[in-house]
C-alpha cells in the first residue's frame, strides 16, 4: 500500500498543479488569441445592453429550463436539406436545412481529422453516439433539441439535460478534473453579466452533431452564456483541439426559455431505445 499510495498522492498533486497552470495558461492564451487568430465572433467583448435580474447572491439569474431552436444537432455547419438516413422514415428523417452555428467556418480540420469526419458521416448510423444513447458531450448537449435546466447555486451550477439524463456540474471554485469523461470537467466564473465555463478532460468519444463532426480528448471548450432579455440567453463557445483543428473556432446561438406553465424536464432514459440496435444481433435466433 505504502509506495502505491504515495505515488497516488504525488500524481494527485501533480495533476492539481498542472491543471491550475493549464487553466491559467489557457485563459491567458484565449484572452490574447481571440483577437489575433480570427475575426471576433459576434463581438463577445461588447458590453451587453441587458442587465439580468440577480439571484440573492448577486449574480445574473440563469435559473430555468432552456432549449435551442436550430438545426445544429443535425449539422453545426451551414447545410441544405438532405435526404433520410433511414429510408423507412422518409421525410421524418430528412435533414432539415440550417444556417449553422459556426461563426467562423468552415471547421478548420487538420487533414487526418477531415478524413475521419468524412468516415464518421458515412458510418453515422453505426457510430453517432446519440443514436446509441451515449452521453452527448459538450457542447452538443447545449443544442440537442431537448430542454435542459440550469440549477444555479453559489459554489456549483448544475445543468440537467433531458437527453439521456445527462448532467454537467460547473465548479464555481476551480477544481481539477479527476478523470476523462463524456461531458468534460467544467470550471466556471462570472464575468459581469456572463457565465464563463472552461471545460476539458474529455474522453474524445462525443460528437458535435449527426453529421460526424467531432473532436479528440484534447478538446477544450470555453463557453460564454449571457442573458439578453428575460427569456433568452446568448450562447457562444470557443472550440480548440490542436490535434483535430488548425485553429480555434467559434459557435453561437440563442437559447430560449421554456414558457409552458409548470414547465419541467421529463424523463428520457434512452438506453432501452438503443438496445435492439446495439445488442439485437446477439438475440437468440438472430439471423445476422
Amino acid at each position: 500500500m505504502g509506495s502505491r499510495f504515495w505515488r497516488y498522492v504525488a500524481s494527485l498533486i501533480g495533476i492539481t498543479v498542472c491543471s491550475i497552470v493549464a487553466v491559467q495558461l489557457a485563459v491567458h492564451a484565449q484572452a490574447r488569441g481571440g483577437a489575433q487568430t480570427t475575426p471576433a465572433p459576434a463581438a463577445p467583448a461588447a458590453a451587453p445592453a441587458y442587465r439580468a435580474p440577480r439571484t440573492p447572491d448577486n449574480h445574473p439569474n440563469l435559473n430555468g429550463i432552456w432549449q435551442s431552436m436550430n438545426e445544429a444537432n443535425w449539422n453545426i455547419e451551414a447545410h441544405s436539406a438532405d435526404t433520410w438516413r433511414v429510408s423507412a422514415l422518409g421525410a421524418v428523417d430528412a435533414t432539415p436545412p440550417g444556417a449553422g452555428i459556426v461563426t467562423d467556418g468552415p471547421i478548420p480540420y487538420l487533414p487526418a481529422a477531415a478524413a475521419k469526419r468524412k468516415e464518421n458521416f458515412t458510418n453515422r448510423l453505426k457510430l453517432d453516439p446519440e443514436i446509441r444513447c451515449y452521453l452527448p458531450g459538450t457542447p452538443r448537449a447545449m443544442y440537442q433539441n431537448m430542454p435542459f435546466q440550469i440549477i444555479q447555486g453559489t459554489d456549483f451550477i448544475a445543468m440537467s439535460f433531458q437527453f439521456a439524463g445527462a448532467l454537467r456540474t460547473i465548479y464555481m471554485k476551480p477544481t481539477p478534473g479527476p478523470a476523462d469523461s463524456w461531458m468534460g470537467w467544467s470550471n466556471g466564473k462570472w464575468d459581469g453579466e456572463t457565465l464563463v465555463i472552461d471545460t476539458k478532460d474529455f474522453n474524445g468519444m462525443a460528437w458535435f452533431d449527426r453529421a460526424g463532426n467531432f473532436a479528440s480528448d484534447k478538446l477544450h471548450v470555453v463557453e460564454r452564456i449571457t442573458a439578453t432579455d428575460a427569456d433568452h440567453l446568448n450562447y457562444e463557445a470557443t472550440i480548440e483541439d490542436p490535434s483535430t483543428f488548425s485553429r480555434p473556432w467559434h459557435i453561437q446561438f440563442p437559447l430560449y426559455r421554456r414558457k409552458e406553465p409548470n414547465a419541467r424536464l421529463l424523463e428520457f432514459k434512452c438506453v432501452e431505445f438503443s438496445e435492439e440496435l446495439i445488442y439485437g444481433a446477439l438475440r437468440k435466433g438472430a439471423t445476422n
Partner: protein
Amino acid sequence: MNRRCLASLSIAAFAIVITVALVIPQTLVGQAGTAAVKAAQEKAAASATKPWTGKTPEGVPDLQGYWTNNSYTPLQRPANLGDKAFYTPDELVEANKRRAEQEAARADNNAPGTTNDVHYDFTQFALDRSQTRLTMDPRTGMITDPANGQLPAPATADAGAAGPRGGGRGAGPAAGGGGRGAGGGGRGAGAAAAPGGGARGAAAAAPGGGARGGGGGANYNSVNDISIGSRCIWTNTAGPIMMPPGYNPAYQIIQGQGVVMILIENQHEVRVIPTDNRPHAPSAVKAYLGDSTGHWDGNTLVVETTNYNPRVLTGTFAGTSPDLKVIEKFTRLTADQIKYEFIVNDPTKWSAPWKGDMPFVKIEGPIFEHACHEGNFGIYNTLSAMRLEEKRAAEAAAAKQGK
C-alpha cells in the same frame, strides 16, 4: 463458463466507472494522523453536533453538499430482533463487523481459476461498503411505523400475494445487490429490501424474457433477460425511496432558486425537484424516478412523488397501483447530517401507510461521471457467450447424430 458467471460479467459493467473519491480522503486521513488532522476532526465533531441553521442565499435551509446513505441497515427489522428497534453502539459496531465479514467472504471467493475470478474484486475501491463512510444508523431496520418495524399487512389477500418478501431477487440491497444475489444467493431476510429491489424481476417480466431463476439457469435469449440495473437503464436504489446501494453510495445536492437537484451517482440519476408545490405532471407521463414536486415546511424539504413507471414497481413496490405516493422529508440536523424520512402510501397494496427514516451523512467530493451504459461490455459478453454456448451445443449434438 456457467451462467452465473455470465450474470457476473454483466454486473461488472458497473465497476468500470467507480468513485475513488469516496475512498481517498479517508485514506489520506488514515495515513497522516497528525495533530492538525486530529484538531480538524475534533472541530468537525463539534460542528457535527451543533444544530444546523445554514440557509441558501434564497433563505431556505441549505442542504447542499456531498452526502452518503451508505449503510447495512435493512428496510424491515430482522425478525429475530423482535421489538428491539435500536442497537447499542457496541452492538452496532459488532453488527457492522459481521456484515462486513459477510461481504469480505464473497471477496475471498475471487481466487484465480474460480468462477468468481471473472467478477470484480469486492475489496477494491468502494465496492465493499465497509470501506466507505457508513452512516452508523443505530436502527435495526428503517421502518418506524408500524412500530414492529415490518411492512403493514396487505390491503387485501391479493395485494399480499403480489408482493412477496424475502430472499431472492426482491430482497437484493441494491442494483449491485442483485449481482451479489446471483453470485452467492444467500442474502436472507436481513438484506435491505430496496423498493423496486427486484429490477431483475422487471426484466423477467419484460417481453421476450425467459424464465429467470434466482441465481442461475437464465436463458439470456436477449437483452430483455438481463436486469434493468445491469442494462444501465435505471438504478433501483434511486427510488424514491432513495435506498443505500451496494456501492457508489454518493449523492450531491445543488440548490437553485425554487429548485433542489439531487445527483445520485449510480448511473447519474438526476432528480430535479421544484419547491413551489406545483401540481404533478399529467398521470400519463410515467418515469422511472416518478414525478416529484416539493415544498418547504419550516426547515424541512417535503417531496411528493407519484407517476412511477410500472416497470419499476417490483420488490417492495410490487403490486402497487397508480395511486402509489411517496412522501420524502429532508431535514438537515447538523453540518454533518440530513435526516431523511419517508412515508409510503398505496391503499390498494397496504392496509395502512408506512414510514421509515435513515440518515445521510457528509462525504468528500467530487463525484465522477458514471457513464454506465457507455461502458457496458457486460451485456455484449453475456449475450455473445450464450450464443457461443448454444452454437457449441448444437455442433456437439450434430456430431453425435452423425456417428
